[in-house]
């Protein structure tokens, strides 16, 4: 079996297990390449129709092309899309100048918590990958969060073969990670194979491109001339730079992502 076929089959299996296991299920869609691939996989898993809502946590600081792409795809795919912004925090002046981690917590983690509380989600499908970052590399495919969305990462349950822990106290929820075992290169090779539309920001213009997408103020471009999917694949095969090198919040603290994720960040 080809590597991409194997990854695709595993992801579809996980998505269907999640759908079977949880009454109230939703998928986080950040408009980035990974969750856009995951959206594609969900369409495949459920024969063209996604039987759960998609959630975009809009910090209001996203790059405008991302929002345009979101609205275009949502319409084309006929998605049940929940867009949520933590307006209380925004109206009180929240922004990266208050401290990047404080801002991520308020506009992403807290916003997500509001959505979970409002819609009573039991399962949230999230497109994190092991090779992105250390604390994500230690994740389970089905990963429990408590009422406050906290991750008890030093005491995770065993996860053997394809047996996932799906029982948990009421009020807690499970983060489901269908593409945990994919690499950045797998994502792009799959985008190529399936001809999946992704936001233009990934393709180089004037010698620069985004390799990882986030909020405008905290996401930098890399030097690159890769302006097609094929050229990105070639670039990734030879690069020695970290995928998230352009993400400023990661550098705020040696354990920034671990600390954010412990409190419920994606």
């Amino acid at each position, binding site marked *: 079996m*080809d*590597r*991409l076929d*194997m990854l695709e089959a595993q992801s579809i299996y996980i998505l269907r297990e999640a759908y079977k296991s949880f009454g109230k299920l939703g998928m986080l869609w950040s408009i980035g390449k990974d969750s856009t691939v995951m959206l594609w996989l969900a369409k495949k898993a459920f024969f063209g129709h996604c039987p759960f809502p998609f959630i975009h946590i809009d910090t209001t600081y996203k790059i405008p092309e991302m929002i345009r792409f979101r609205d275009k795809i949502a319409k084309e795919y006929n998605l049940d899309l929940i867009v949520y912004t933590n307006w209380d925090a925004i109206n009180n002046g929240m922004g990266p100048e208050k401290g990047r981690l404080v801002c991520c917590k308020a506009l992403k983690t807290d916003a997500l918590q509001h959505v979970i509380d409002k819609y009573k989600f039991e399962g949230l499908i999230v497109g994190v990958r*092991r*090779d992105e*970052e*250390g*604390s994500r*590399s*230690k994740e*389970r495919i089905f990963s429990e969060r408590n009422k406050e969305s906290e991750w008890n*990462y*030093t005491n*995770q*349950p*065993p*996860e*053997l*073969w394809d047996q996932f822990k799906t029982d948990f106290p009421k009020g807690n929820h499970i983060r489901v990670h269908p593409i945990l*075992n994919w*690499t950045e290169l797998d994502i792009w090779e799959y985008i190529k194979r399936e001809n999946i539309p992704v936001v233009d920001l990934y393709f180089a213009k004037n010698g620069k491109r985004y390799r990882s997408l986030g909020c405008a103020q905290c996401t930098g471009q890399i030097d690159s001339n890769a302006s097609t999917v094929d050229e990105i694949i070639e670039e990734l095969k030879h*690069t*020695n*730079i*970290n*995928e*998230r*090198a352009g993400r400023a919040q990661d550098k705020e603290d*040696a*354990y920034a992502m*671990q600390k954010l994720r412990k409190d419920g960040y994606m």
Partner: protein
Amino acid sequence: MLKFRETLKIVVVGHVDHGKSTVIGRLLYDTKSLPEGAIEKVKRISKETGKPFEYAYLLDAFEEEQKQGITIDTTQIQFHTKKRDYVIIDAPGHVEFLKNMISGAANAEAALLVIDANEGVREQSKRHGYILSLLGIKKVYVLVNKMDLIDYSEEKFLDVKSDMDTFLKSINVFPQKYIPVSAFYGENIALRSKKNAVV
């Protein structure tokens, strides 16, 4: 037609502090399989904690793991050679994290069992060997690590090998090979060592 590439999943097991994460970290480092940022980050943290470059930090990403110098949870990392793709799975060596070790090992098709040459066979060396046999992992390689601490003595290496082999045979595990290594100094990790002539 896409070119077919084989993927092999290998778990690294063994007693606490016998050097599992260091073996993997060194392998990734010597084969230049890591992005710049990852190595820079470890250098920075090692400097802050006043330690020499700690290869294990490349895998032990949690603050608690780095501060205590232990692996708490299993992790997976991709590694490629010309021949095939590998998924290398790190596993914790403490008895209280056995469920995490099993979570890692359940995914593997082959195992490296690491034993400290100086300490010899310990409780988790045996227990992990037993779990490998329960999980049906047949391709087991034993790495006798920290050969530098025993001056690359062939005699001591053979003692450890004989101890472990007696135990493993009793539970029907027949290792493919015993390999003397020094993960910290990179002997017999990515390249064949000139010091260890005893494979």
